[in-house]
């Protein structure tokens, strides 16, 4: 290797060093530390007892921890995100990207829930779902549909869906904005050429716009799936995993293990599993999109 190349590599390394240090310090080191704690029985304060992989075994076998059920709920949310939230976002992005009248105000309105604090959204939806004076039950009563009134967040048959609705609603605008940026990036010349050739609006979207924004769709799917696996805040505010653990997701189980049960080892085990699952799903989705290409 020439001396000049060595100097170049050294310069590159030096410029990358600050970012690398941050990346290791903020992301890699905590993951390694969590993986280390996951091998112990530890209450976060006293002595640590080495358990090996016993926490992982308990995680998948213990009914009391209920990780499998929580993971199942997260997967339902991921499926709803991919098959309901993203199509809605795409439809809105395609509609707004066409340059309809009032494009900017609509864009702001749809994006507004993303800007509002999740705790505020949680409080709003708590009021909507309130069994006594909530908007939903009041509306059903006014429409003569009293038989459909429910204790939406208190009935384990309806709680999961009731929690997922605001979760999906909140991020429709986020995905819409990502896709809208892609749709706007499609050259008007191509659209025009297709229309001159007799393509309908639907055909333009299907054969031109969507294939062009495929990389953005891939990112949206990854965000939706991994976001579902690590969903926490809105569920914590609305039900905190209840009633009867019906709305538990891995994050709520992790918080209970860490801070309510003082089981830092088991909490770290759940954290490690969530990291592994998020990476695995991200890789699978990337591969699926690559094969589709």
């Amino acid at each position, binding site marked *: 290797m020439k001396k000049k190349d060595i100097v170049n590599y050294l310069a590159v390394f030096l410029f990358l060093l600050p970012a690398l240090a941050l990346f290791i310090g903020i992301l890699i080191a905590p993951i390694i530390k969590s993986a280390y704690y996951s091998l112990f029985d530890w*209450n*976060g*304060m*006293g*002595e640590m007892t080495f358990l090996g992989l016993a926490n992982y075994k308990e995680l998948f076998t213990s009914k*009391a921890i209920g990780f499998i059920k929580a993971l199942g709920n997260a997967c339902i949310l991921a499926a709803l995100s991919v098959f309901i939230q993203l199509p809605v976002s795409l439809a809105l992005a395609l509609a707004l990207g066409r340059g309809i009248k009032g494009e900017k105000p609509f864009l702001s309105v749809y994006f507004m829930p993303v800007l509002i604090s999740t705790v505020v959204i949680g409080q709003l939806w708590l009021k909507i*779902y*309130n*069994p*006594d004076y909530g908007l939903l039950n009041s509306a059903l009563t006014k429409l003569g549909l009293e038989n459909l009134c429910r*204790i*939406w*967040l*208190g*009935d*384990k048959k309806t709680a999961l869906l009731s929690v997922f609705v605001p979760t999906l609603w909140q991020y429709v605008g986020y995905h819409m904005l990502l896709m809208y940026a892609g749709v706007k990036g499609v050259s008007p010349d191509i659209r025009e050429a297709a229309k001159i050739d007799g393509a309908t609006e639907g055909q333009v979207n299907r054969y031109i716009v969507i294939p062009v924004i495929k990389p953005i769709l891939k990112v949206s799917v990854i965000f939706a799936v991994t976001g579902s696996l690590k969903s926490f805040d809105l569920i914590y505010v609305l*039900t*905190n995993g*209840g*009633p*009867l*653990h019906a709305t538990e997701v891995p994050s709520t189980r992790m*918080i*209970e293990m860490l*801070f*309510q*049960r*003082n*089981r*830092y080892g088991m909490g770290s085990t759940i954290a490690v599993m969530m990291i592994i699952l998020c990476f695995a799903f991200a890789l699978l989705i990337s591969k699926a999109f690559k094969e589709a290409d």
Partner: protein
Amino acid sequence: MKRKLLSLVMAGTMALSLAACGTPAGNTGVGTADPANTPAPAPVDPAAMEEEITLDMWCIATESDSNRHSYEAAIADMAAAYPNITLNWEAFENESYKTKIKAAVSANEMPDIFFTWSCAFLQDFVDAGKVYCLDAAYEEFKDELPESMLGNSTYGGKHYGVPLTMNIVGLFANMDLLKSVGYDEIPGTYEEFIECCDALKAAGIIPFGCAGKETWCVTEYLESVIEKSVGYETLNDIFLGRATWDNADVAAAVDTFQSLVNNGYFDPNGIALGNDEVKANFMDGKYAFYMNGTWNCADFANNEAFFPKVKVAEFPVINADKATLGQLIGGPSDTLAVAASSEHADVAAKYCFELGKLICHYGYLDGCGLPAWTPYGDTSAVNALTQDVAVICGNATGYVLFGDTAMSADDANTYLSYVDLVYGCEVDGQGFIEGLANDIR
């Protein structure tokens, strides 16, 4: 007379409480630090109390908390008495505080003085060597704070907490609603109590309000039913790990509780509500009964329209062969402690005692509970409801501390999970005892 009654209440209560939850010397669990072998710190140097210092304190006296006023008044008094000591205090919501203080203890970032619950909750911190021993500072206050009061925060024979007030679970009743179905008093026997609930239900009045979203509110009902079915000694033994959960009498008591749920005595909407909402509903006249801590006396007394309607009693006896009136759920749990890592731990310890005494004083006057400290000054303004609680406690024969405070964090949460399942009728009494016998580590 009132003062004499209170003294008797306190002495009796705390002796019973000490027997229930005090940790035998040397038995301190599995932590790294052994409180019994930790040397007691030297008494605080009087000059140290005159230094310009700043202390930090965390507590749960939020704006909506019954104890808020007593904290504010006590802190104002302390600021006047010790102008050289600046106290920065922050209040956090009850449930989130549990998470916050545990995280702070783990990270060794505790404030100088912190609110805690006694027994198992504080024991984890003490076992880890994170709490300052208060033996030396206590010497100065032992005439005003009987040692028996410190039973729930004594580990390995050493004192680690300053108790504030003590509370029990009370059966609060809206007498207007009871009168509307022909009851001038809260029924004294279980049979009459059930008849009263049936009459209320028939009149379209919901007998019980209970916040299913906060499981501790369910335990206020369930633990009372269990205690009045199996007796306080049996329940105490189970909570403190001296006996197994696998007890047929407990299973029968849980079935009794579940029959109250299945009979439609509880507000079905309550499962989705928090305690503040349920309490507001009770004060609005939606429920006839509300079983909860006697710290609520303050809020009830402050509501001029509601206060004349409310009365308090203890839950009636279900099985007279095993339980009697006077067996109560509760005890001194609210406590202040000092972090071992505090830069001014010796000063903070003395400050903590004086502050605790004042919070107790104002809290008692406000009706937030019975005093852990010997009352002083004019206490004639204490509301009638709190005085009734004092009478109930004066007749007490045994106490069982709240289950989620008496048990370790992991066991307590397993227990709460099963309480949820019982309230949701997912498991019956047999499933409850078998599950807990298997799952409690």
